[in-house]
C-alpha cells in the first residue's frame, strides 16, 4: 500500500532533500512515524512536546484536510497522496 508523501520545502532538510517519499503504513500517524524512522528528527519538526500536530501545519490526504477526516488516524490507501503543508508568509 504505497502512498506518496509530499514533503514541504521547509522540511526537506530532514528527508535528505527529497520532495516526496513513499510509505506503506496504513494511517497518517503511522506514515509519519514510518518517515521518522528513516529520517530521524522528522517527527519533532511536525509535533510539539505535548504530542500534538503543530497548529501551523496542515496535513491532507489527497485534497482533504485530515481535521475533517479522522485526524491522524485517517486511513490511507494505495495511490493516495499525503501532503504536509505548513503556513508560509512570504510576499
Amino acid at each position, binding site marked *: 500500500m504505497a502512498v506518496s508523501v509530499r514533503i514541504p*520545502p521547509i522540511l526537506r532538510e530532514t528527508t535528505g532533500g527529497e520532495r516526496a517519499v513513499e510509505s506503506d503504513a496504513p494511517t497518517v500517524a503511522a506514515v509519519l512515524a514510518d518517515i521518522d524512522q528513516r529520517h530521524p528528527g522528522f517527527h519533532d519538526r511536525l509535533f510539539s512536546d505535548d504530542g500534538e500536530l503543530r497548529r501551523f501545519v*496542515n496535513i491532507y490526504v489527497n485534497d482533504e484536510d485530515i481535521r475533517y477526516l479522522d485526524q491522524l488516524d485517517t486511513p490511507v490507501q494505495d495511490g493516495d497522496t499525503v501532503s504536509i*503543508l*505548513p503556513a508560509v508568509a512570504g*510576499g
Partner: protein
Amino acid sequence: MVAVYVPTSLRRLTDGQAKVEAQGATLAAVLDDLEGRFPGFRQALVADDGELHRFVNVFVNQQEVGDAVGVATPIGQADEVAFIPAIAGGATPFTPVQVQRYSRHLILPEIGPRGQRKLLNAKVLLIGAGGLGSPAALYLAAAGVGTLGLIDFDEVDLTNLHRQILHGHKDIGRHKLDSARDRLADVNPDVQVVPHSVALSSENALEIIGQYDIVVNGCDNFPTRYLTNDACVLLKKPLVDGSIFKFDGQATVFLPGQGCYRCLFPAPPPPGSVPSCAEGGVLGVLPGIIGCIQAIETIKLILGLGESLAGRLLLFDALAMEFREVKLRRDPECPVCGDNPTITELIDYVEFCGLPRESALIG
C-alpha cells in the same frame, strides 16, 4: 466581407451572435445589409435623421468614425466594424482612447462594455507593494480597475529589484508608494492610485479596508496576514490571498461566510521558525506567478466571471512546474468566522504571533 462586432444589447436581434459578417461599401450600406437579415438592428443605431445616434460610438478597424462622416464612412472589403453604445443607466460613455485601450476586453463577449465599466468602478486595496503586490498592481491597473489602494511603508532597496517589478533602479531610496504611483500612472492614467503610507494596524485597518471592495494580500509576515484576515471577516470583504516561500506558492480567495485564513491556519509558526525572503531567499519570478493569479482572481470577482478559487487552496511548485489543489472549508469553530465567534474586534497581532514588540513588521 466585413466583420461586425455586435454589442451585447443587440445580440437578441442576431440570435445571440457577437460577431456577424456583412457587405457594403459604406457604413450605411452595411447597416442596410444587417437590417435585412436582423430586423431592428439599424433602428437601434440610427436616428430618424439617418445619422448614428449620439450615444453610439462606431469604430472601423479600431479607429473611431467621426461625426462629420457618419454613415457615409467608406468601408473596405476586409474591415472590422464595431458598434459600442454607451451603457444605459447614466454611465459616462467610454472615451475613444478608452475604447482603444480596453478594446481587447470590450470585444470579449464575457467582458464587453458592461464588464469594463465594472472594472473601472471597482476599488481594490493591495496590502504591500512588493513581490506579490507588484505584478498584481500592474495587471489590475492595466485592466482598468478604477481605484487601487496601496499600503506599504518601505523604501525601494536594491535587493527588491530581482522580484518587485513595480520598482526600478531609478527608484532606489524612494518610498515604494511614490514609485508605484508613478509606474501605475504610466501603465494606465485611468486608474486612481490611493497611497496609504502607514503601517496597517489594529487602529487603522477597519477604516482603511472599509473604503474598498476587495483586498489583495501581498504582505510578507504573519501578524499582518492575521490582521488583514480578521479585518476582512469583520467587514465582510473578499480577500484574495497569496503567499510564497523559496520556490513554492499558495493562493486562494476567502469570500465572506466561506472560511478565512484562520480556518486554514489557526495559529502562526513560532517566530523565527520560518525564514523570511531576506533570510532564506526566494526565486524572483515566483511572486510574479502568484501575484498574477491574485490579479486574475480579483478581476473574476469584479466581473462575476468563471469559477473562483474560493473553497480551494492552490499550491504551486515552481521547480516541478506543478499546480495542485486542496479543499478549503469554513471551520464552524473558527474564532473569527465560525458559528460562535470569540474574536469580534481586532486584537494585538504581534502578541498573537509571539513576536517581541520591537521586532514587529506590519505592512
